């Protein structure tokens, strides 16, 4: 009934200010920043490695939580009403080959220096697209997934032009390791896909589950088995994963479980597109006058790539603040520039 609008800060598109900015990544941080900048009159170009806007909002979080259509419409509104230009299937990178979920779609590569040449400023909102690994033997067996490796194809396979296949968990035994929101999303997706038996394995107790007691209780109501204070030790198998070995609490006895799928949902790590050139950990450490600006002038950063995996709302706030800071920097920079050139002129006259 009320459509989503990332350019919620202005009543109508403002007159253009003649400046161009680039946003890398179209997740919640990138889209909010694009909306902020569009409301300030910028010509905004948004780059994304995927064929659709939304980032993890669309490709990570299942559609029954966040309706993909609503995000799609909101991105469309940015384009139609505010002239925001999306460049999909385009990855911004350096010569370093970085692999993470979603790279299957990349058709074009653009370098940061090309962007800096074309745009007054650049905002990096590349999120957290690599999942943390279990670091146990057998982790590379077929049938062992990270939460993103599992969830991403479920959404991506719906795009007509792809050859990505969704994991076939129907009638299978699924073990999910972790008890955060992405673990819950994996379990719920598996339930919908008709998995035979689903077990959640968590290193602490239900009270400490990051997703909250209630989510776990609801899943147990739906027949999910819950094993707490458990540590996965080894995964056995040949062609396909077969057994998961784990220990529980202080019990010295090792336990085994028959499995067809092991999905580890133990968190994601930020995906910095320029790991060699840019240490995102350093942002905000030095006394930079400009909030969320990196050591490169005019390159800003926002969202999960800066803060680590967080909530959608925090990414939005981070995107808005970075856009505001970027706008301040551009204005100050142009003022300095104008002053310098007038000073130069005076000198030459003298």
């Amino acid at each position, binding site marked *: 009934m009320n459509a989503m*609008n990332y350019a919620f800060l202005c009543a109508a598109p403002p007159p253009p200010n003649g400046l161009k900015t680039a946003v890398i990544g179209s997740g919640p941080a990138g889209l909010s920043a694009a909306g902020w900048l569009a409301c300030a009159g910028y010509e905004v170009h948004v780059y994304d490695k995927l064929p659709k806007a939304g980032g993890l909002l669309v490709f990570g979080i299942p559609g*029954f939580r966040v309706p993909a259509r*609503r995000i799609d419409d909101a991105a469309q509104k940015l384009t139609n009403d505010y002239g925001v230009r999306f460049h999909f299937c385009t990855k911004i990178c350096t010569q370093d080959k970085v692999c993470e979920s979603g790279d299957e779609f990349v058709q074009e590569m653009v370098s940061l220096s090309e962007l800096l040449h074309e745009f007054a400023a650049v905002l990096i909102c590349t999120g957290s697209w690599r999942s943390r690994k279990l670091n146990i033997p057998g982790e590379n067996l077929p049938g062992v997934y990270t939460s993103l490796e599992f969830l991403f194809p479920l959404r991506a396979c719906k795009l007509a032009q792809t050859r990505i296949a969704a994991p076939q968990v129907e009638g299978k035994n699924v073990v999910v390791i972790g008890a955060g929101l992405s673990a819950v999303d994996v379990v719920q997706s598996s339930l919908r896909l008709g998995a035979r038996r689903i077990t959640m394995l968590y290193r602490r107790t239900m009270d400490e589950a990051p997703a*909250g007691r*209630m*989510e776990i209780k609801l899943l147990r*109501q739906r027949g999910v088995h819950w094993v707490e204070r458990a540590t996965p030790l080894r995964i056995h198998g040949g062609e396909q994963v077969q057994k998961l070995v784990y220990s529980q609490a202080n019990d010295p006895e090792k336990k085994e479980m028959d499995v067809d799928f092991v999905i580890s949902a133990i968190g994601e790590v930020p995906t910095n597109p320029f790991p060699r050139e840019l240490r995102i950990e350093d942002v905000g450490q030095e006394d930079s006058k400009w909030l969320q600006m990196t050591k490169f002038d005019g390159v800003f950063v926002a969202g999960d790539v800066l803060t680590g995996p967080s*909530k959608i*709302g925090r990414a939005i706030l981070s995107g808005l603040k970075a856009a505001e800071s970027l706008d301040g920097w551009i204005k100050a920079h142009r003022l300095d520039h104008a002053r310098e050139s007038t000073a130069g002129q005076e000198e030459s006259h003298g």
Partner: protein
Amino acid sequence: MAENKKTLYIDYNLCIGCESCEAVCGYLYGHPRIHMTRTSDGITVPISCHHCANPACLKACNVNAFYQDDEGAVILDPKACVGCMVCLSVCPFAAISHSRSGPYPVAKCDLCAERRAKGMLPACVEICPCGAILYGSPEDIEAELRQRVAEGIVQAHMHPERFGAEVGLRAMKKSLSVEGFAVDPASRSEFDAER
């Protein structure tokens, strides 16, 4: 009730607790007026003013600092407020906030009065990724909610395998109906025993 009454309604069946509403509210007003609150069971829900037709805060206020605007929004005049907090104690939704950082001691949702004056919607409504925050006339909100329930009932009938025997009842609870309920008697016994 104001003739052109409009109000905010949070559909908790669709809310995923993502904090987007609180984030934009805080960005706009310095201190958010919609509050994400975590229950003892670990579910996070936004708490905000319901803009009641018969507001308890308005009646209880010692200095008559509350009024209803021509769209029925319950507004606190911060200049008149003395910060006694009696409004918070009578509010059934604990929707009034004490603001230590702001210029005035008490703040509450005014349905983005400044934005509405420019023909814009409340910001939280526009940023919610789930469509869980509705804004409109009570009739519009009622129609939208009824629509959502109807969708749930139809889905439940189309996919009985997901919903089991408890179709009608489950469909009324949209979160469950959208989700589906894998009702397998064997797997439920564990849970029932726990209860």
